């Protein structure tokens, strides 16, 4: 390539660079909506910043404020417990600023879903403070986001499904306003939906926060609006200027946040087994969770406690999970015993898994082929009589089990 050509090429690249470098569009401050007076009357405070206006509501609670079973200040005990614990996704230290966070939105997903309420609940050690920021109208969005200070401060965000919903949604809103406001900071996230699922799997049918409140946290809402009405209520408030119903959404959000605090306290206490206060299923779930986190000692302890503490009809799964740990630790005979204890109290798919484990232990470790054969045959019978599986699922299982049966029979005939 000739020298001139090279220079020409560089010139073109130079051109591209300047082309991609774009001037930030100047921000035009949107007009103030005409209903601010009415919203103020309803109990909201008007806030104005460089990007427009928004509304705010602040509520403080004394440390002794009781919400259901717990006083808010029990949060400090919970943090204390975590400070002395092994690694855990829910562990925090007293150096962190815990901010309980929940939003209300106009939809479930996509760029067309607005966040119209950002709710924060936190404590300075003296009292608890709820701060709610309300979108004045969609044109004043930058003002709302800017005011949340989430671009500035560092906090540990505690939420309910926030990791996959509220926070990504916030990121979306932020991206749309990226030309004007500073970047959103990445914050540490603790999502209590995750722990709730681990704790109460097979125990609670629905993992809705209101269900948890009633079943586990001792709180019953009175006069709450159902969450799915929130979008329509906000739309109406913007269109009509009437904010009375909107205030109910704010109360709904307030309850959500208070319950997040007590849920965190409650889950922590369960995980540290302060006292046996929940069902065998819950503690079995806790034991399995510790096992999955590779904190085997704690896991085995919890499961053993379950088997000692509850009636045999409720401890099937605890025995099953204990057996899996015992097998991993090469304690085959104990594992087999635990499995046999588990059998009468577990459902069919687990029974099938238990017979599979028994067959494996008998065949490969205890080398008792007769017994292995019996377990395998029982397993096969269970599979064929199990009604909830499709024929395809059964087919798959059959081919696996028949192979095993064939191999064991061969070994017996040798």
């Amino acid at each position, binding site marked *: 390539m000739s020298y001139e050509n090279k220079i020409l090429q560089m010139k073109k690249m130079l051109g591209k660079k300047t082309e991609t470098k774009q001037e930030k569009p100047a921000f035009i401050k949107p007009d103030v909506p005409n209903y601010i007076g009415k919203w103020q009357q309803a109990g909201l405070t008007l806030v104005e910043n460089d990007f427009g206006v928004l509304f705010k509501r602040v509520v403080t609670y004394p440390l002794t404020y009781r919400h259901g079973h717990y006083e808010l200040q029990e949060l400090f005990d919970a943090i204390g417990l975590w400070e002395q614990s092994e690694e855990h996704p829910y562990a925090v230290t007293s150096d962190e600023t815990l901010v309980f966070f929940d939003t209300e939105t106009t939809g479930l997903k996509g760029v067309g879903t*607005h966040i119209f309420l950002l709710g924060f609940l936190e404590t300075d050690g003296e009292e608890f403070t709820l701060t709610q920021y309300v979108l004045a109208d969609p044109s004043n969005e930058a003002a709302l986001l800017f005011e949340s200070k989430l671009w500035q401060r560092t906090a540990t965000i505690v939420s309910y499904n926030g990791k996959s919903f509220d926070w990504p949604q916030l990121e979306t809103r932020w991206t749309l306003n990226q030309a004007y406001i500073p970047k959103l900071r990445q914050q540490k996230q603790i999502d209590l939906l995750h722990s709730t699922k681990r704790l109460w799997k097979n125990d609670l049918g629905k993992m809705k926060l209101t269900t948890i409140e009633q079943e586990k946290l001792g709180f019953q809402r009175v006069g709450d609006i159902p969450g799915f009405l929130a979008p329509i209520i906000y739309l109406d408030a913007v269109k009509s200027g009437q904010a009375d119903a909107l205030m109910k959404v704010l109360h709904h959000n307030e309850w959500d946040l208070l319950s997040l605090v007590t849920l965190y306290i409650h889950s922590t206490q369960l995980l540290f087994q302060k006292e046996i206060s929940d069902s065998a299923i819950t503690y079995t779930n806790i034991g399995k969770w510790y096992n999955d986190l590779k904190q085997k000692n704690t896991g085995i302890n919890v499961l053993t406690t379950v088997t000692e503490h509850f009636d045999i009809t409720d401890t099937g799964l605890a025995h099953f999970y204990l057996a899996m740990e015992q097998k991993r630790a090469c304690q085959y005979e104990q594992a087999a015993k635990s499995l046999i204890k588990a059998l009468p109290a577990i459902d069919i798919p687990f029974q099938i898994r238990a017979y599979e484990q028994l067959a494996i232990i008998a065949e490969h470790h205890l080398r008792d082929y007769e017994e292995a054969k019996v377990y395998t045959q029982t397993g096969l019978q269970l599979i064929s009589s199990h009604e909830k599986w499709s024929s395809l699922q059964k087919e798959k299982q059959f081919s696996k089990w028949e192979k095993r049966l064939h191999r064991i029979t061969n070994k017996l005939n040798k």
Partner: protein
Amino acid sequence: MFSKKKSISELLQAWQYDEELKENIVHWHTLDGKAAEYEPFPEELHPSLKSALQKRGIEQLYTHQREAFDKAVRGVSFTAITPTASGKSLCYHLPVLQEIINNKSSRAIYLFPTKALAQDQKTDLNELIEATGEEILSYTYDGDTAPGIRTKIRKAGHIIMTNPDMLHSGILPHHTKWVSLFENLKYIVIDELHTYKGVFGSHVAHVIRRLKRICAFYGSNPIFICTSATIKNPKELAETLTNEKHELIAKSGAPIGKKTFIFYNPPIVNTTFGVRRSAVLEVRDLSKRLFEAGIQTIIFAKSRVRVEMLVTYLKSLTAKKIQDESIQGYRGGYLPSERRAIEKGLRDGSIQMVVSTNALELGVDIGQLQACIMTGYPGNIASAWQQAGRAGRRQDEALIIYVAQSTALDQYIVNHPTYFFGTHPEEARINPDNIIILMDHLKCAAFELPFSMTDTYGEFTVQELLAYLEKEGVLVKTSTQWHWMSDRFPAHEISLRSAAQENVVIIDMTLPQNKVIGEMDTYSAMTLLHEEAIYMHQGTQFQVEELDWEEKKAYVREVEVDYFTDANLAVELKVLSEDKSAEYKSATVSYGDVGLLAIPTIFKKIRFNTHDNIGSGPISIPPMEMHTSATWVSFDMPENWSEEQLTDALNGAAYAMGSFIPLFLHCDRSDLSVVPQVKAVHNDRPTIFIYDSYPGGIGLSERIYDILLSLLERTIEHVENCPCKSGCPSCIGAQDSLGDSKKQVLKVLTILKDEMEWLP
């Protein structure tokens, strides 16, 4: 029988003296080959790209590839006409890769009409990228993409290969997750442009307008590169689809081997009713000859059922060999792994014969075969040439056999080779102005980004439409903007593949666990999913046991019966507004909006093969209303005709005209409907309505308004030349009795033609 391998020319020579064959061959046509035309690599082509090409044995570019590169570098959007096997993918790969190598933050979107095509192209592109040694990430992004790698694709993918449906509902409504793509989008590649026509194309035109709107928000202004099969109006289609000026690359530099076309018309077995031998059986016999001569062949059939039939027939050729895989079927509904294996078998030659639906018409890489058989005319010239293009290895001689069916369109084509070889492929029309489609996408656009009080959308001014949407309660107006404000997700309510807003879900109850096996637009469902209807899905018969019209669900169960069902739809038409009109002596041709009331009446059970009517029943589905656009022609009742005579003649005329519409417009037979009325409601005169089969219209009937005269001429000519005595499925439709209906139909058509030729 002893068989031996033959070359195409040896085979053709033998056929020249085959009396049996010769009788049915209506036309031989040879297209001479053409040598390749080359240009050197462009100066600025990046060295790593150059070496990647050289590794593939490419030392220079075909002229069209070079032209494409130069235009792209100049920053011009363009459309290239690319016949099969002309190396079209380099038309876009080269400029795109060049850009990304020079600037690693650059991004490109490749749009393919289907998921499968995107996945095919991925392999090809990745091989090229690997040969460059550059780190360029290309991914397919569709419903099959694992959730685990989606984040990576969004952030780091240089080239995103996807389809319009995914763009519509999976990418655009979530554009904030794709910031790095939209901020740096340099190229949008639209492959198989010609497939974006009719309702689907009109939808995609809006998806692209939305895409461009989002690009503008993030400050990018991408260049469009389109590639298309031969159609009449590629530049116009590309410009309407993308709302952007395009330059056209019309001439391909790729070499073409000599091609011999044989037009084969099955013999007439019943002269009176004009019944010909089944095309499928003829294809079976011809395929057998090609198979025995060892010629690698692709056979196109129009439906999945026909593919399966032919495969079954042909497999008997190899039945005596164990594990012989040399004959295969290929169609939608096969597993991706099965399809990949067949494609590979075709490339390496282990498969000698493949029977396919038009699934293999598009750019799936199967290499080039020696011969192609078309079972029936695929419906339009562009498809026919795409199918024919599958035969012909570079410089080798190729054989294309077209076996005509007995439909009017097929019989016209087989008897008018000049039409086929003439230079006028069909037009592909789309209509982004369709207000229903426009409103659908305006909602999506408002969901994606707010509109200001001065914003336009594409070429449309939309402030009044936005005000309407505010009244509907999905938008809210602030001091400066219109914002989406509803918990609905509009993209999920809008399917690109149909303009009807609601679909009927088809649920299979054969197994205890009910399974959704498909969807159908409500209009078609009226005649295809009524209770007791036999619904065919992937060659399996299902009977509709229950149709829940309120909930739009059809419950079906697998059955094995020897009949199919055929339902009647009574249509009432009402003229709502007349936009254009031409007065003749005693006839009027008009174009405008019509209201249509479709009332399903009865269905018949018809036995396979014999087509005996073996039963019937009522259909209880409420009538359906639809607004669409139509062209209609009214005339005075001819003297001395009874109403009954006129009804028959009009029905025949409508049948004949309807068959020819795909010849003029690049559209499916079902995109337009032709309905005659002896006494139209609005003027009491005999009238033939030709209307768009989709709510709101897609611009096809408006074209008919302009070309009605030539449509009539062509129809008359064909009906006159049809060898049948009194009407047959090839001209005016099957007739119950031997009357003079053919004459009557011609009379009506001629009256209309004469009227229109008369100049005031």
